[in-house]
Structure formats: structure tokens, C-alpha cells
């Protein structure tokens, strides 16, 4: 295993986390991670050393997801339904109170349109800058900013964010 592969292995937990935002179903999410990782290895010569590897793989994963959703739509296949039990992203949360909250936050994010869900996940969960998120999503930074605002306002409205 070389340095590049080691870095990809180290990224796996974060890739799984991001994939769950995209796919909303843990099994689909891991399939997506696998596809993204395989593509990343195939195209490793295209990665510019010194740039963020995570951003690069996130972009590959985003495109893999677009391919997957298109092909599923073409084939008329349905997505595996997000099951309540599986939907709780954080299995560590043991206290019922926190667990309910985690489910609610997750559910709220899952309910957002994809164009808002992705920038929110990249910036708020993965900690990317607006510029880096724009590069992953291959959209202008101003678009990222406006989608972030819209998505967050929707989330905060549900959680009584303002003044709560």
C-alpha cells in the first residue's frame, strides 16, 4: 500500500459520512463510497499533489452519485427506502433525548433539496471553505453562498434556531 492509498484509507470514515448525506441510506452510501474510491484510484494521476485530497475525492463521489441517480432514473428503479432505525446517523448517541435530536436534525437535512444539502454538508459537517465547496460541487462560489443561506434558514426554522 503506498502513501496515496494510505491517505484514501484514512479518509474512509469521512467519505462514509458524506455518502450518507448524499444517499440517505447506509447501504447505498457504502456502495457509493466504494465506487468513489475505485474511481479515485483509477484516476490518481489526475490528482494534483499539494491540493486537498478530501475535496478531490468528494468531487468524484458527487459525480458518481449523479451518475448513479441518473442511471437509476433511467432504469426506473426505486431507491431503497430510508428506514427509521437505520436513519440515525450517530449510533453512539445513547441517551434517548440526544438520539431523538440527532434523528430530527438528520431528517431535516435529508428533507432539503440536494442542491442545498450538499453545500451544507461540505461546509458545516466537513468543514470545507466556501471556495473549496464550490470546487467540489463545480458551481460558482456565489451559488454556494446563496444555497447555504437558503438551506440553513430552512433548518433553523425547524429547530427554532433564531432566538432559541
Amino acid at each position, binding site marked *: 500500500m503506498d502513501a496515496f492509498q494510505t491517505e484514501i484509507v484514512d479518509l474512509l470514515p469521512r467519505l462514509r459520512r458524506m455518502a450518507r448525506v448524499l444517499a440517505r441510506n447506509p447501504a447505498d452510501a457504502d456502495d457509493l463510497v466504494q465506487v468513489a474510491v475505485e474511481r479515485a484510484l483509477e484516476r490518481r494521476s489526475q490528482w494534483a499533489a499539494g491540493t486537498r485530497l478530501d475535496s478531490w475525492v468528494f468531487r468524484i463521489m458527487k459525480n458518481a452519485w449523479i451518475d448513479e441517480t441518473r442511471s437509476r432514473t433511467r432504469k426506473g428503479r426505486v431507491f431503497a427506502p430510508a428506514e427509521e432505525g437505520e436513519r440515525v446517523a450517530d449510533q453512539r448517541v445513547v441517551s434517548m433525548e440526544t438520539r431523538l435530536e440527532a434523528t430530527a436534525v438528520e431528517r431535516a437535512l435529508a428533507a432539503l433539496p440536494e442542491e442545498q444539502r450538499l453545500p451544507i454538508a461540505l461546509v458545516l459537517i466537513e468543514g470545507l471553505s*466556501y471556495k473549496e465547496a464550490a470546487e467540489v460541487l463545480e458551481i460558482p462560489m456565489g451559488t454556494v453562498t446563496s444555497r447555504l443561506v437558503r438551506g440553513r434558514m430552512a433548518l433553523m426554522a425547524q429547530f427554532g434556531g433564531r432566538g432559541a
Partner: protein
Amino acid sequence: MAITEEMIMAYADGELDAAGRAKLEAAMAKDPEIAGRIEAHLKLRASLADAFGGALAEPVPDRLVAAAKGAPPAKTADVVELAKFRAKPEAPAKRGVPRWAQWGAIAATLVVAVVVDRAWLATPAAPVAFGPGGQMAAQGELATALDDQLASGGGGKAVAIGVSFRSNHGQYCRTFQVNQGQGLAGLACREARGWIVPMAMASAPQAAQAGYRTAASEVPAPVLDAVQGLISGEPLDAKTEAAAKAAGWRP
């Protein structure tokens, strides 16, 4: 100037430049509500990170680690035992892949390998028994299905037969999917003492299949790989399969 939601958000995200920060902090000093709005953004950030933090703590499935290491997919599944009898080096290279195997490979990319429950395999009701030297032999319903069930005839719910073929050792071999317990997919070859299972892997029970082709398309990749290494010629068709069955699967 007016403080927009966009500015407040950018402040919370650390995306404002020095001038923007100064403006916002000046506005905050006059209007305490702004501080509350910034706090709401920060709280949302924290609860999202919390809700999705679980993926970071969970162990990563082996198949993903293997994929990151660039291992061929066949090695990512949890294979109980893969006998080493692959195609002999002197055997002529097979031209192309049978059509059913191509479908199978596509479907198999979606197969999630789960660890075989060894405790289940150790019970008398298990489809396979371990002989001396760790060799697996089919027993019970699996052995009966391998004897009696035709791949081309669709099949019972407990066991589905995928494909039947002649191995390059001259034996008859069949792929199977056990739809009981934890589920088991694999390959069995008929020897004088019964159905020997050179390889099997955990494979979640599948809904009853309509027939031969559908069943074949569900064969997991490692099983297909084993078939590829073992098959001589093409899979049996309905007629040759029935004849093999009539002959007690003895070559």
C-alpha cells in the same frame, strides 16, 4: 449598512474578511439580536456535526478498506474457504465471458458481503458440514437441492441453484444460494462421497427467483470468480442438466 443573513452566516463560518468582520462586530455592539443569530448558526453547525459524527466512530467495512487498497473485488468478500483449484495454467484461455456471468458480475457489484456466522454453520441444521482438514460438504436441504433441483426449473425457496457446469476436473458443479439462516452462497462439486463445497460465502437470503437466468444474475462475484476458474466449456443448458441429474451427477 444593513446586516444580511448572508453576512451573519459567513461570520459564523469564518468566511468574512477583516473589513466585513469589523462591520459586523460594530453592528453587533449596537444590536444584541445579531449575536443571537450568529449563535444560532453555530448551534446548527454543532448539531449537524453531532448527528453525522457516528460514521466517524463506526468501524469501516472491510470491503471499503480493500477497495481503497486497490484489491480486486473478489478478495473483499468474506470467503469461508476458497479451494486453490483455479484453472490449470495449461488450460486454454477461455474466450469471452458467458452472458450470464456478465450479468452476474454487474449484479454482484451491489452485493454487500457480510461475515459468515460461524456459530450458525456449526449447528446440525447448517447447510454445510466441515470434514477433516476443514473441507466443507453439503448436507441436509442443500445436499437434497443439489441432487434434485434443476437450475433451469426455477426452484424451491430454501435453496436456489444458480448454474450447473462441468469442471475442468470432469465433475459436475453447481452454484447455490441458501435462503435460510444468515444466507450462504457458494459452489458445490459432486464427488463420490457427496457434494463438496470448495467455496462459500455469506450472502443474504434472496427472494424466490423466477428462474435460471435471474438466479444466475444474483451470484456474488467471488462465487463467479470461482466458477470462472473451474468451468470447462459453457454452463449446462436445461437438457444437459436434466441428463446429468438423471445420471446422478456422475460423469
